């Protein structure tokens, strides 16, 4: 952890000087006052300078990005680039390059695992919860389109046959995509059955 200890006439001056040395603003550091100092009599006798220590706080998003980079590299995927996008509390890391298929895995399993781990790392350093999305080659957007198409197809099937259609188990956020895709569908209702990680959606023709 990066830190500086500064001695100056007053606490305020010491803090300012420390921030300048670290080149950051006050909200990025933790200030520890080691000695408040004394003005002394007529500013001469018993004069003692103030001493403060400024510790640079780790930036959760920077730490997360470093972690992700290192893990990807050690997984043997070279030449991958990570692009960062931030919307409020949500940060998206978009990975592009060759071999990213390895990072996505079956049904995006590996991608989800990387996301979970990166999220854990980020929130070790975060004061407010940050939400991390790890994506590769637009996988999540493509997957969303696929799921919406699938949802429409299964709804048609349920209506045509008049029977319930069961899907394979899907993670929570993917189930949500299907639920919301069919939320306004008048002829079917959707619900989930089973316990994680085997929870799956049932598309059922609505009783009329």
């Amino acid at each position, binding site marked *: 952890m990066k830190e500086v200890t500064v001695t100056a006439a007053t606490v305020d001056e010491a803090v300012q000087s420390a921030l300048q040395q670290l080149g950051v603003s006050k909200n990025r550091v933790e200030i520890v006052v080691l000695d408040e100092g004394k003005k002394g009599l007529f500013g001469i006798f018993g004069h003692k300078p103030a001493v403060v220590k400024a510790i640079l706080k780790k930036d959760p998003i920077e730490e997360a990005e470093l*972690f992700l980079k290192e*893990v990807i590299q*050690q*997984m043997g995927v070279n030449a991958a680039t990570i692009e960062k996008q931030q919307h409020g509390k949500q940060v998206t890391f978009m990975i592009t390059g060759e071999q990213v298929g390895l990072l996505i895995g079956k049904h995006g399993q590996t991608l989800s*695992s990387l996301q979970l781990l990166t999220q854990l790392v980020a929130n070790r350093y975060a004061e407010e919860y940050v939400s991390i999305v790890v994506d590769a080659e637009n996988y999540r957007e493509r997957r969303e389109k696929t799921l919406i198409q699938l949802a429409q197809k299964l709804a048609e099937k349920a209506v045509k046959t008049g029977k319930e259609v069961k899907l394979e188990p899907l993670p929570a956020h993917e189930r949500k995509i299907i639920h919301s895709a069919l939320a306004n569908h008048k002829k079917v209702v959707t619900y989930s059955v089973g316990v994680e990680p085997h929870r799956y959606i049932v598309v059922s023709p609505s009783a009329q």
Partner: protein
Amino acid sequence: MKQLIETIVQALVDHPEEVSVTNSEDEQSITYELSVHKEDIGKVIGKQGRTIHAIRTVVYAAAAKQPKRVIVRVKEKG
């Protein structure tokens, strides 16, 4: 592979200096045994094993190219 496991785990725990990984090998598989500080065991395993599951998924993906099966275990101590 050992380095990958260490990188991931060290970033998650409170005592990174106490993370160690040992491996043993037989004809079909390589077993990586992970040992961490007692207080960090819960962190590495996670709620309902979510974290260790994620670690395994990432490690298995990285190990997909090699012929032997890879196993990741968390060592319990004291």
